[in-house]
């Protein structure tokens, strides 16, 4: 009898976890679409207001940022995908802990850790 309840309990926990995961997935996709909309409107506003000199500086820092992100993404796919499915993005402080753990477990290099953290948190 006790074991039956244990089994029902574990099935219940599994069902709750799956439900939470589905809810998180929906939330993530909602956030993604709203972020795209916000980015589009802010780009339109900023284009009108910036002077040409500052625009050039911004462009160069933006291209550096883009290069770092691309490199971070590459390192993320290469390193994380060696053992498991690369996860979706997590909040920055969660990612910082997970990467410290992975630095020990998967023996990531210091540079890989920093680039992946940058990619996953921006």
């Amino acid at each position, binding site marked *: 009898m006790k074991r039956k309840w244990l089994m029902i309990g574990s099935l219940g926990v599994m069902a709750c976890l799956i439900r939470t995961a589905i809810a998180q997935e929906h939330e993530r996709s909602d956030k993604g679409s709203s972020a795209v909309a916000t980015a589009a409107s802010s780009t339109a506003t900023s284009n009108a207001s910036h002077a040409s000199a500052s625009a050039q500086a911004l462009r160069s820092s933006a291209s550096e940022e883009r290069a770092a992100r691309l490199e971070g993404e590459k390192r993320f796919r290469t390193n994380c995908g060696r053992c498991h499915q690369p996860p979706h993005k997590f909040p920055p402080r969660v990612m910082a802990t997970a990467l*410290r753990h992975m630095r020990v477990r998967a023996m990531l290099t210091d540079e890989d850790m920093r680039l992946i953290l940058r990619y996953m948190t921006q």
Partner: protein
Amino acid sequence: MGWSVKRTRTFLTSATRLRALLGFAAIALLLAPGAYAQTASEEYVKPVPLLQGSAGFITNFEGGQPDLHPIVTPVVLLPIGQRWLFETRATFENDLVAVPGRPGFHGGPVEKEVEYAQLDFLANPYVTVTIGRFLTPFGIFNERLYPAWIRNLQSDPLVLPIGIGPSNASTGGMVRGGFKANRQLNINYAAYFSALSTTSPVDSDRFAGLRTGIFVPKARLELGGSFQHLLQQERSNLFGFHAIWQPAPLPLDIRGEYARSKRGSGYWVEPAYKLSQFPFLQNEMRRTQLVARYQQFFTGDLPSDSLPSVNTKQFEFGVNYYFMDGLRATTNYGRQFSSAGNLNVWTLGLTYRFVVPLGPAGRVP
């Protein structure tokens, strides 16, 4: 008298080895502050304590006998300051089997085990010092592929018990790290010493070992080797090799390991292919993964409780379906061939990976 002298000599030898390892760790610590200063300042995100891990409900059919296997494996990660991390993993599992003459499935009490509890010190970009109870870094499966949500097939490789100790873990100290050797090559290493512990379930053997690997990011290829010297019983040497390759043009992973000891030897090879390149039903195909594993085990000179008692071959084929990040259905069929009798092995299961921050975590970017 002779026994006493031999025993004293053995103790001194292992004490010397332990001193050498501690000396190495001490040097690493001494070199630490200057080398780490740059990295510490660049780690701009404050980490939060985490509860993560996996839950699974696996059903095995071995030789026609069903066996329900619920398993929960929580991992607690507790970062301390900029350079320390305490991490521990526990397992709660049960085996429920059908008993003739009684309805339903029955099992014993829930098995509880702390698989590891270790304190890591990130000494510098090249060295991490670990003390406590840690997963033995022999080969890749035990340390990197073991959790239910990571492994492609739910069954353990036959050679898994070689080199990892009686409860998959070591009790002692370890230095490890990874660094870039040049633009084309990363090197990783782990050197460890484990003391004898006879307290179940945290038992461990006395041994010292080293694992090293090279990773070529451009080719997405990792090759490595493990060596271990047992400092008790027959005082034998164990060694192994591992490889992981992900050819860039294909969504294909190929992993394999070879391990050899006096108690047996063997290998496994496991290709896994995601169907994401198929031009039809793309939403379903990109979530589907085909996996196969072929493995062979050869008995050694000495007997072992955890390894097969006869030469064994096993082939398995499986399909994994990823509903979403972290949630996966898994199924596989395999057949085992040995002189003790051939049998079919079926597995059906559901695995889930969870991550719960134990504090304010910020927003998903």
